[in-house]
């Protein structure tokens, strides 16, 4: 921003944004909550990678990983993480139509259809994973 100084605008008043700007408005607070809770999403990724590593290392490593995961602290952390990952998934799907514009036979598809497609893909993937796990 250039600092123009003219005789007609002798002193511009610049107000600083408060550190607590996100507390003044519900939508700002929701935004910051989403940003901060990304830490839990990151933890979910780390946990998943550790799980994969344990599986790759063989049955005993996997057993040890399960034991470690059953500790109350880790269990609690994972329950909280699960809630936030679901929160992120839902808010992400709801925002999708703003970023994705799809056409069918020259006509723009409504946003609700994009959201619905995302939820459908989520449901199908979940069913598939459940089937893989439960068929044994």
């Amino acid at each position: 921003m250039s600092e123009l100084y003219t005789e007609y605008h002798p002193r511009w008043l610049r107000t600083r944004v408060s550190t607590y700007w996100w507390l003044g408005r519900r939508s700002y607070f929701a935004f910051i909550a989403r940003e901060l809770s990304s830490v839990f999403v990151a933890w979910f990724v780390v946990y998943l990678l550790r799980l994969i590593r344990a599986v790759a290392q063989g049955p005993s490593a996997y057993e040890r990983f399960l034991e470690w995961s059953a500790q109350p602290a880790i269990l609690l952390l994972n329950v909280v993480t699960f809630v936030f990952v679901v929160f992120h998934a839902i808010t992400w799907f709801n925002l999708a139509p703003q970023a994705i514009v799809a056409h069918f036979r020259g006509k723009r598809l409504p946003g609700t259809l994009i959201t619905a497609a995302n939820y459908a893909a989520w449901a199908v993937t979940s069913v598939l994973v459940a089937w893989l796990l439960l068929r044994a």
Partner: protein
Amino acid sequence: MADRIALKVARYRPEQDSEVTFQEYEVPCRKEWVVLDGLNYIKDYVDGTLSYRWSCRMGICGSCGMTVNGEPKLTCATFLTDYGSGPVRIEPLRNFPILRDLVVEIGDFLRKLTRVKPWIVRQDEKPLADGEYLQTPQELDEYKQFSMCINCMLCYAACPIYGLDPKFIGPAAIALAQRYNLDSRDEGARERHAVLSEHQGIWGCTFVGECTKVCPKNVDPAGAIQRYKLSTAVEALQSFFLPWGGR
């Protein structure tokens, strides 16, 4: 309905003030009156020293944007009766330097707007004799929503990113860049890309989404930015995996 309503108006007179103070005025509260009518009443009958911008009175010129009870609003489209018995707090648009009372300095936005070339760019113009560049209604629909922007800057006032980092190019400038990028007659997307893909361009946006909520014209600047991010990311992936493919 009360027949009078109190307006608490922000004052800043650079000759004498070093910060914003509030002055309370009482104005008639008529059913058809908007906040701007209240301000005009003050200017005409109560206090001629009050400064504010306005022009068309019908949501087209985009000059009467102010903060009304904490919300960025076009004062010509905000009815006094929606605020009950008041008082209604009227402040200048946030995130801009204040020149006087309710008037803010908008040079920063105007410079950013020019940077994204919000006009039709042609690599080679066809001769006038060849007629207009024709467009189908479907092609018009692709960008029409973004062309509704009236440069009122409510989106800049609502955007915390712009407040924290004034170098961010901002919602309206990006939405208007998209308006031309999506126009079938335009060939300037590459030139705009250089500005939009800067760190202070689209990637500065963290999708708070408030710009879209406050937009009086339903332009959806947040959508424009996310669409541009998506198409840029897809393009980058394509050029990485298919470097031989035409872009």
